[in-house]
C-alpha cells in the first residue's frame, strides 16, 4: 500500500517580485511532502516570501504535509512575509480545523482574497 505513485501537482505562478501563488493538487502526504517543501524553499530562496497556496484541488493532506505548512509559514514570516492558504477543500479544511492550524493560519476564501490580505506589503 505504501508504494503508491507520488501524486502531487504543484504549479508556481509568480505574481510580483516577492509574491508567488502555488497551486497544489492531489495528495500532500509523507510521499510528496518532501518535494513540496523544496518548491516552497525555492520560492523563499528567490526572495518570494509572500506565498499563497491554492488548495482548491488538494484532496488529501496528512501530518507530514501539515508539518511542511507549519515549517514554511515560520520561514516565510522570518523572511518578513507570510504564507496564506486559499480555498481548501472541505476535507483539508477539516484537517486544518482539527489540528488548530486555522487559528494561526486562517484560510481564505480564494486566491484573490489571500493576495488582498497581503495589502501593500508586497
Amino acid at each position, binding site marked *: *500500500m*505504501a508504494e503508491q505513485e507520488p501524486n502531487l501537482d504543484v504549479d508556481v505562478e509568480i505574481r510580483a517580485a516577492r509574491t508567488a501563488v502555488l497551486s497544489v493538487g492531489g*495528495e500532500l*502526504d*509523507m510521499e510528496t511532502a518532501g518535494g513540496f517543501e523544496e518548491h516552497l524553499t525555492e520560492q523563499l530562496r528567490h526572495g518570494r516570501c509572500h506565498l499563497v497556496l491554492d488548495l482548491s484541488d488538494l*484532496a*488529501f493532506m*496528512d*501530518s*507530514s504535509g*501539515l*508539518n511542511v505548512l*507549519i*515549517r514554511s509559514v515560520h520561514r516565510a514570516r522570518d523572511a518578513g512575509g507570510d504564507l496564506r492558504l486559499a480555498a481548501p477543500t*472541505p*476535507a483539508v479544511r*477539516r*484537517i486544518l*480545523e*482539527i*489540528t*488548530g*492550524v486555522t*487559528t*494561526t493560519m486562517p484560510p481564505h476564501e480564494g486566491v484573490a482574497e489571500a493576495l488582498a490580505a497581503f495589502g501593500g506589503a508586497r
Partner: protein
Amino acid sequence: MSGPRHQDGAPSTGLPGRAAPSPGTPDATAPPTAGGGPAPAVDELVDGRLAATVERLRGEVRAAHAASEGRALVELAKGVLVERLGCGPAQAARHLAELADRAGLSRLELAADIINQAARDRVAEAADAFVRTNVAEPGTAASVAVRLRTAESAALGAGDTQAVAESLLTHALEPLGAVAVAIWTTGPDASLSLRGHAGFGADEAARWHYVPPGVTTAARQALTGRRTVWYPSLSAAGIPSIGRARHPDGGRVVVPAGTGGRIHGVLEICWARPLDPQPQAVERQVEALAELCAHTLEALPGDAPRAVPDLAAGDGAPELAALSDGLYDPALVLTPHLDEAGRLVDFRIRHVNAHFQDPAGRPRGSVDGALLLEAYPATAGGGDLFDRIERVHATGEPFRARRTRLTSLVDQVPLTSLADISISRHGGSVLLIWRVEDESARLASLLQHAQRLGRVGAFEEDVVTGDITWHGQLFELFGRRTTEPPVALRDLAAHAHPDDADTIRRFLQTVLYQRRVSSTAFRMLRHDGVTRHLRVTAEPALGTDGGLQAVRGAYQDISAQHWTEVALTATRDRLVATEEAAEERNRLTLQLQHAIMPPAKPPLDAPGLDVAVRYRPAESESLVGGDWYDAVVLPSKKVLLCVGDVAGHGVEAATGMVVLRNALRGLAVTGAGPGQLLSWLNSVAHHLTAHVTATAVCGVYDPERRTLRWARAGHLPPVLVRGDDAADLPLLRGLLLGALAEAEYEESELRLEPGDTVLMYTDGLVERRDTAVHDSVAQLLAVARLPSDGLERRLDQLLARSKSDTDDDTCVIGVQVS
C-alpha cells in the same frame, strides 16, 4: 520592557555634564545670569536669602556682560562651528557675525542657539518646540533659549534647593504666567518634604514642610503615577496641595523629577487662574525644568528636614547584603544599571543571600553579579516583575503582594510559579524578597526533572577530518566544560563503565564498519564521579563513493527515573537480541517502539476503571512512526490517559515520540491539569526537538469523582460510548504541539457514569484518502455503537473494522468505568 518611559514623564536622560557658560541678554527684561557663585547660608531667613540671591545673580549678570562668560559662550559656539564646518577659528568668528546679522540676533543669542543645537538635550528640545509653535514673534525663540539656558545655569549654580526654586520662578515660570513653585523631595519611606518654594509665602510653606507617606496630594500623584499631571483647576480636581487656600481655582502641574530611573522629587507649579490646556512646547519646557530640578536635588547634599540621608550615603548595597543574609527567604540586592546616557536599563544583582535558590537550578555564582534581565529574561514579561522593581526604585514606595506569578525559564521552557513578593528601596539599592509557595517549589523541581528526562543532545563526527560537533547540552551531559574537547565515539569506552566496554565495541563496529544505524545504552563515568545512564544512537553518513564520511547521532540521558530504567532494560534486551539479525534501521525503530511501549496491556491498578490499549504498527516497517499511548496511575491516584502522534516516520519520529511521552509522564506527576500539561508539552516539542510537530489528546481521570478532565492538541477528540450510543466529544481549542513557542489548550470536564467507555485513538484508525475525516469518524462511531462483549473485545472490533487505507500506525486506548 526596560528603561524608563520618557513619554510618561518618568525619569529620563540627564543634562550634559558640560558646564555651559550662561548667556546674558542685552534687552532690559532679560533675566540675570548665574555662574557658580557661593551658596548662601542655609540658616538665613527666607527673605534675607531671597535678597541675597537676587543680589548675587545681579552681580553675575554684570560680570557676564562685562566680558568673560559672554565671550566664553561665543567661543564655545565658535568651537562648534569649527568642528561642524571644518573651518578655522577666524572664519568661524566671521561666520557667526554674518549669521547673527542675517538673523537679526545678537551674537550672544545666536551662540546660545548654536550650543542648543549641538547639545541636543531637553533644554534645547524645549526651546526648539517653542520656536516651531511660536514663529509669529521674531526674537521670542531666542529669548526662550536664552531663558532656559539661564535657568539651567542658575539652577546648577545655586547652592540649595530654595535658591533653585526662586530662580526657576523668576527666570522660567513667571514668563509662563505661573505665580508659585514648590520643589518636593521624596524620602526613603515615600514621604514628601518641601525643599524649596517660591510664591507661596513662608507660613504656608511651613504648614506644608512635610507630607507623610500615604497622604494623597497633587505632588504624590506625580510620584506614584511616575508621570506629569496637569490640573486645570485644583479645587475642581478636589485634591489638596500647598497654596490651595490662596489660589483655589488656579491650575497646577506636578512633574516627577528624576535621574537614572529614580525619582528624587516633584516639581509643582501653581497658576492663579484656571489653566487652559497648554501647548506641547510649554509641556516640554516644564519637563525640562523638572529634569533640571532632579539634577540639583541629586547634586545637593541633604539638608535640615531630611532624617535619612539616602542620597548621600552611597547605594547602601553592602549593608543591605548583610541584612539580606539574615533573612530566611531568598533575596536579591539590586542596584540600578544605567546606560551611557544615564538611563536606567537594568539592575545589577549585587548580592544573592544565603537562602537564595535559582528557580532554573543554576549555581548561585552564575547569578551573583549578573544583570537582572540577563539572568532572568522572563522578569521583563508576564508578571512585569521588572516593571515593579523599576517602580519601587523610582518612587521609593514599597511593593508587597501575595501569590504573584513569577516566570522563569527552565531549559528554555517558561515555568510559572506563585510567590509572595516584597520589593523595597534602601538607599540606592532595591531589596527583592520572595517566598515561593511549597507547591510551586515542588512543581519547579519536578519540571526540572521532567526536562532532564527529555534531554537529548545531538552530535556529528566528520570521519575524514576528525571534527566533532556537539550540541551544547552534551557537554553538560558528559560533565565536561565547553572549553574541553568533545569525546570521540572511538574513545567512548574510556568514559564508560568497564562492564559496558563490549557493548560499546559492538555498537561502534556496527556503525563504523558495517555502516548501519545502531543504538546502545551504557553507563558513563563522569570526571566528577557521577554515573549516568546514556543511550547513544548513531547513523553513518556515506559519501557518493560509498565511503564513510561522517557519523551523526544523539545521546540521551536515560538515568533520571525508575521507569526509564525499566524501559532501558527492555531496550537493551531487545537491542541485544536483534543486533545480530537487524538488517535496517526500520527494525530498530520498531524494536525501540515496542521496548518503550509494549503492545500488551499495561498493568494498571486503578480502582473502578478498566483500561485496554491496542497498538498496531504500520505493516511496512519503513512506515513505523511516532504514535504513542500512555496510561498510568499518578501519585495522586488519578489516571493519566494519552494518545499522540508525532508527524513523520522512522527513527526521527520515534525519537520524538520517546521524548514527548517521557516528558508528559514526568510532567503529569506534578498534578497539573491536561491543558497545562499540553501547554508544557508544546514547549518541549517546540524547543527540545528540532522540527517536530505532534498531535495528542490528554486526559486525567479522577476515580473518586468519576470525572475525566481532558484537552487536545490538534488531535481528534475522544469518543464517548454510553449505552448504545457513541459520540465524539467537542473540538476543544488546541493547536498541534510544536507549531508555536507558546500555546494554550482549552480544557473540559466530563462526568462518567458506570458502564461508560471513552476511546482515544490516533488517525491511523480513521485516515482514508478517499473519505473526508468527518465521514471516517462517522463510520468509527457506527462501529463503536455495536454491542460488544467487554472492553478488550470492543477495541479488537474497532481495529478489525477500521477502514483506514494509509497504512499508518494506529493506537487506541479505551477506558471503561466499572
